[in-house]
């Protein structure tokens, strides 16, 4: 004892109350490490915040749209020359004809309201409305031929630049220089707004309408992309979940441990790290060129994403199966259950929450994937909605992430807003899916 205390004294430790140099160094190192951690988290949160702020700042306006109320006289001599009200005969009048009707209605409105603006040319009035409007009116009239001869109240979108004016993207100064909008048009928009004829409201069409060409960014929507993404997720779920679960159960519960299963295991782990574009090349070669499946179709996208998602699902399923205590299976086997019964009656139900969580995370990953879809023709301008399942899986469609990619390449600045709006929709889907995964895990996962 005395020897020991003599030793301490020999190392020159004066008091417990005063820290020696080494302790101070250790404490300082710990403080420094905590500070590094805080800085790391701070940088992460800041980056996320900047990202979200820029996306929401740019994109939230995509959910609003400026529209104008018009009284449109549908005259028989302009729209139904035959006078038969037969839609087939009325189809002869193209959107050009309906465009003229709308322009006349707008000019009429300006005259009726007594709006006078310096320098407002006929061309300004003609280009005030969206180029999508004539098509909407035409479809409306062809669906209800009896409207001919009456005057209907019709709400139409304004040109993307006018819409941009109310969203702060276009100003009177920029309009001076812009060849697609004139300050007179903006004054007209202000005058119409003061009279309550023009307003900006919620834009459901952004979620339901199909894509539109460069000349009408105001009409572009995500309808086809959302359906396409949903179809692909259905295909992925229907293929990846059963295949992945079956493979995991076999590998985990039935397969003998030998070099072959080791090899498979290594390959699955490798497959999870393969860049996704590789799956796109594979999909193009096998599903389109060899199997002859159609281009731009959700079925091909789904099959490619299935290949990509399989390793994720297999790895998480095997982890979930392994987390079930062996005692449960042993008890089942002990009372005479077959191996299959033990697995399907006891192990699998207990592992189900873990499997579902892994599947949902895999699906969320697949939902945001763009690269493999580039190669199989999904980055396309698609305006027709795909049909109902199962035939609809073979119709051309777009997908949410490729729609974002597509819109960022367009020349018209209004598409910047649309692209950010699409990112918001995509993020919303991802947040919902990940939340479901977390809730499932929290509620049903059991720990032993």
């Amino acid at each position: 004892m005395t020897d020991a205390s003599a030793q301490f004294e020999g190392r020159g430790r004066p008091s417990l109350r005063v820290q020696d140099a080494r302790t101070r160094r250790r404490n300082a190192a710990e403080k420094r490490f905590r500070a590094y951690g805080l800085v790391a988290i701070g940088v992460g949160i800041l980056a996320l915040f900047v990202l979200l702020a820029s996306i929401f700042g740019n994109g939230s306006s995509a959910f609003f749209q400026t529209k104008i109320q018009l009284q449109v006289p549908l005259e028989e001599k302009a729209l139904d020359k035959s006078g038969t009200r037969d839609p087939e005969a009325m189809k002869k009048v193209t959107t050009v004809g309906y465009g003229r009707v709308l322009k006349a209605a707008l000019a009429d409105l300006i005259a009726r309201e007594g709006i006078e603006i310096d320098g407002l040319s006929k061309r300004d009035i003609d280009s005030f409305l969206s180029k999508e409007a004539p098509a909407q009116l035409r479809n409306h009239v062809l669906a209800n031929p009896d409207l001919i001869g009456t005057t209907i109240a019709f709400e139409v979108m304004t040109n993307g630049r006018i819409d941009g004016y109310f969203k702060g993207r276009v100003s009177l100064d920029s309009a001076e220089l812009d060849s697609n909008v004139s300050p007179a048009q903006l004054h007209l928009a202000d005058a119409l707004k003061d009279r309550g004829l023009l307003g900006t409201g919620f834009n459901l069409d952004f979620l339901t309408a199909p894509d539109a060409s460069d000349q009408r960014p105001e009409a572009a929507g995500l309808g086809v992309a959302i359906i396409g993404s949903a179809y692909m997720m259905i295909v992925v779920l229907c293929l990846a979940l059963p295949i992945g679960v079956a493979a995991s159960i076999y590998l985990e519960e039935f397969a003998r441990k030998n070099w072959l299963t080791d090899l498979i295991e290594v390959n699955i782990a490798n497959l999870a790290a393969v860049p996704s574009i590789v799956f796109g090349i594979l999909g193009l070669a096998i599903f389109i060129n060899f199997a002859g499946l159609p281009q731009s179709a959700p079925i091909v996208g789904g099959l490619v994403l299935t290949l990509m998602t399989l390793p994720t699902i297999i790895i998480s399923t095997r982890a979930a199966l392994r987390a079930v205590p062996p005692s449960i299976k042993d008890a089942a086997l002990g009372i005479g259950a077959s191996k299959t019964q033990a697995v399907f009656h006891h192990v699998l139900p207990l592992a189900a929450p873990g499997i579902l969580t892994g599947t949902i995370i895999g699906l969320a990953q697949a939902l945001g994937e763009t690269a493999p879809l580039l190669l199989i023709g999904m980055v396309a301008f698609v305006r027709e909605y795909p049909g109902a399942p199962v035939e609809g899986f073979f119709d051309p469609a777009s997908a949410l992430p490729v729609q974002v990619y597509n819109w960022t390449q367009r020349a018209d600045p209004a598409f910047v807003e649309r692209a950010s709006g699409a990112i918001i929709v995509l993020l919303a889907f991802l947040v919902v899916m990940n939340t479901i995964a977390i809730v499932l895990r929290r509620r049903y996962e059991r720990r032993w």
Partner: protein
Amino acid sequence: MKTVKYTVSALALAAVSATAAAARDQVQVAGSSTVLPYATIVAEAFGENTDFPTPVVESGGSSAGLKKFCEGVGENTIDIANASRKIKDKEVAACAEAGVSDIIEVRIGYDGIVFASDINGPEFAFTPADWYKALAAEVVVDGELVANPYTKWNEVNPAFPDQDILAFVPGTKHGTREVFEEKVILAGCEETGALEALVGMKGDEKAAEGTCMALRTDGRAVDIDGDYTETLARVDSNKAGFGVFGLAFYENNTDKLRVATMSGVVPSTESIASGEYPVSRPLYFYIKKAHIGVIPGLKEYAEFFVSDDMAGPDGPLAAYGLVSDPELAATQAMVAAEETMK
């Protein structure tokens, strides 16, 4: 049990996919990103005004589109390839090898290439010679071939302001690059007399042209492999930089860009149509004749595209920035007669 059910449904799905490949009822188009906006405008109007479904239009570049086009004949191959350049003999041969022998070539109009900088920058009046001197890798000074010594625009031409040389040019995978090299850099090389001097030095015209068109790699000529939106973003962040754009893109962004004149001509659809503005090129699309009559609406789409209502001087394509073809009537007749390339 659940797994069994899943497996059965998966097998059913796989079986359906094997027997599918049902008749395609919409036209499929792929190719040049320069032609893409025009093709989508036409496709949209075509879908609206006819009973045929809206064609599906993919982008990806002229070369990629023509490669896809030449993959063969059949419903899982595309019907039309858009291109911002003429199809090459090599590509025609590749097509023929895959069984695509009857190709209809349709010229839809012309596209101008413009040089623009930030809206608040100074005005520039270029000639091809200025661009050659500013961007060539090697220039001829006093009869000697030296690495490009110029760093400021006023060194190239005393009339220009004291501004760093910096240009964002389309990358080599773009059809626009070829036009830029031939109609601007090579023309400038000839104009300055450098081409002649180079032919004397190299003794071979091809090698001399190659030297002319090689752009400097010291960071003053930046290749943009993306599209014009990327070029615009670069010009936006670097106010002294010049971007090379398509006329249509510029026309849609006149509030952000100041366009420079070339040889004293302001680029516009009129000056390009009259041939005054020197830097322009024709745009095409190619139709697989074997698909006409098999894919519903294919011929109708082609005819609709070149109709006066669409591609004419007052049509929506001209409004977007396409320079309409003075010989459009001949093209219309050619499409109607389904005349193939020789």
